[in-house]
């Protein structure tokens, strides 16, 4: 079976000539791309990593890597998917560079205590639950539930078969639900 991948843009459409110029080393064109896509890239790295400083580093690293790799971009019409892949890789690398010393679990009771015994919001519960998941699971959940990417696009971004993407999303969702249940129980 042959299937052509399609992708959803992650922001206002980019002028194709901008991408072409950036591929040929035009820094001004690349700056325009950075400004047009920074929000979406930061949103992605922030959603995956949770930590603001890490997200900032990863977003910056993603664009530096993209600039470096632009000449090798084979499919300019799939630039957004490619950029997301670069951002995901940068997030992974940022997390690895930080090492485990910065990965810590915050007991839900602490979160509640810090919040002055107010009922945690769904966003807060989700944030705590996501921290319990490995980055691969966080990534696929973010792509699906935040970015709204269908399975085919997730598979294309992560460079995995659709069946694999589907099963990984299923497992990630199951893990997230378990973590969220724990949050509910602890409330």
């Amino acid at each position, binding site marked *: 079976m042959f299937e052509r991948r399609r992708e959803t843009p992650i922001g206002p459409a980019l002028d194709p000539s901008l991408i072409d110029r950036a591929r040929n080393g035009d820094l001004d064109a690349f700056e325009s791309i950075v400004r047009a896509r920074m929000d979406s890239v930061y949103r992605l790295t922030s959603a995956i990593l949770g930590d603001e400083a890490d997200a900032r580093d990863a977003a910056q690293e993603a664009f530096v890597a993209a600039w470096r790799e632009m000449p090798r971009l084979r*499919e300019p019409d799939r630039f957004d998917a490619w950029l997301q892949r670069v951002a995901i890789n940068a997030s992974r*690398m940022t997390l690895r560079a930080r090492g485990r010393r910065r990965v810590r679990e915050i007991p839900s009771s602490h979160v509640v205590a810090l919040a002055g015994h107010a009922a945690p919001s769904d966003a807060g519960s989700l944030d705590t639950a996501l921290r319990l998941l490995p980055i691969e699971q966080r990534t696929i959940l973010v792509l699906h539930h935040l970015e709204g990417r269908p399975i085919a696009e997730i598979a294309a971004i992560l460079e995995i078969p659709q069946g*694999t993407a589907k099963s990984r999303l299923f497992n990630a969702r199951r893990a997230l639900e378990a973590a969220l249940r724990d949050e509910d129980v602890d409330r």
Partner: protein
Amino acid sequence: MTHDDRLPTDWDDDRLAAAFQARASARATPHDLADATIEAVRRHPTSGRRVSRWAVLGGLAAALAIAAVAVVVAFPRGDDRNGDRPSTFGLPVLSVSQAAAVRDRGVDGQEVAVAGFYASGGNRFCPNPRFEKNPTLVWCPDNLNSLLDRPERPQRTGSQPLEATILPGLSLVSIDDLPTDPVQIVPIVVIGHFDDRRASLCSLEERKACADTFLVDRIQQVGDTILPTGTIAERTPILDASAVDAAVTSVDPRLAILSRRVVDSDHLSDTEPLLATARFNRWTHFDEPLVWVVTAIVPSADGSPVQPRTFIVPDGPSLALIGEMAADSVERIDLVASADPSPTAVPPTATPSASDNPATTWLGAPITVSEAIDHRDNHLDDTELAVKGFAWAPTGPIACTMIRPASPALDQCPDGFTQLAERDPGPPAGPEFLQPDSPSIPLLVRRETYRQVQVGDVPRAVIVLGHFDDHRSAACPTGQVDQCRHNFLVDAILHPDAPGIDRNAIESTRPDPDVRPVASVEDVERAMPLRGPRGADFVIAAFAVSGRAIVSYEPRAAEAPEMTSAAAVWVVRYLDFIDVDRPVVRTALIVDGPSESLGRIYLPTRDGLETITRIID
């Protein structure tokens, strides 16, 4: 906190999406991030095909050509003990025609220096992008680059140039000093080789073309500029180049460094594809996020052929080991600190030693048999485990009263006779089968189990890779499912000091010798849903059996008549690292056929048979 699956959850898709959106909305993009990023990009030294100084020099380059080649000869670098012939690093400097003759005379892979002219193919539109990563596979638009004898593009008859040209593979070196404009043809001296070891990893159809690529290990000179042995770094490493050079030269003090690169370990397999697809991806599973890749040669003192050598050095403070790449393996070289702060290579020992301190496997340090038993009894799941211990098995015939077809996860006589024990019980004293005198587990060893070492009736130290709770337990006879779940299915029996899986052994595993598959292991591997480097999956077994027999290997195959009626079906077992804390061995089934037909893959699970179809652009 417990993970009780029976608890209900009201986190439906809408609530989840709203929570994700709310979480994201609470984190606005820092207002200065775009500016700071642009500043970082501006500072970045390697921006790919930026406008180079050659655009300014324009046609001057060609005019300087002959003089520049003279400079090459006048400024050889490295050991130059090659008589009257111009040389660099002890390598004779050949013309493009001479190098093309080397290419065409057969496989040798020797390192040569070539002086000629570089012409870029420019940035062309490429309608068929390729995603395979192999430095010898030079694809559009890079396959339009060329090395020439003269500073002008050769005349062509059809697509064939009338003069000698060489296709350079430039993925291992920085191209910042090369022009990108096709009209600018510059004099150049490069060091590299044909017949690179990685050509064997190209498809059969492309292997010849890959072998004919001149893989450049170093750009020695461009125009009149002799380039230093610099380091191309994706990010700032911890180690400095001198420490890395010292580690490499501790292997052989004669080594001369041609080039160094520092890459994210995630990217290592881009240039070392062996590490992405095969059993050696432990070499991408470093704690260190960066890896040095160093290419070196031992300069020839007498003009004899020289082979390039590639070393992998994890960028960590300890500098405990390095690896040397070979065509189908990576040699591990342990380094020990000496009085001199430079590390020293320890020659690999051929003699196996006791397993008190066995080597780390892809799964981490092996656990003990007692720990494996605890896993079975208190944390039962199908996590792939590496267990160290002493194994033995009967070598003579065993009389079993009844053998019946059943699930491969069910222990049947003579399964219970192969044991893994915590301590060495010593050699057998008589004809009776040796009984363990320490915690032990029976091993379910199947025909397809990979054996780096053979187990006989005398206990020997091993590391066993395997798992409890095999997904095929579900196919055990009613009433024996729980027993099956507690059996330890062995995937590999490994040497305790140098655990590894040999490619050739995988390819020669043929539990059903009468089956002659059309596809090769390589074809099947390529069709597999394996992931990329870092967290990469890799194959530990791949073999073909007849469709009639497939159910005895994988009971779920009975649900797919396409498989049970096939002449041959591939069974592929691979380590899935999707969860780095809980690797598991998964199975894929592929009906045999020509490589281009291997599009449908069956993934049997505990609950059913998942089917995936390859996406082909």
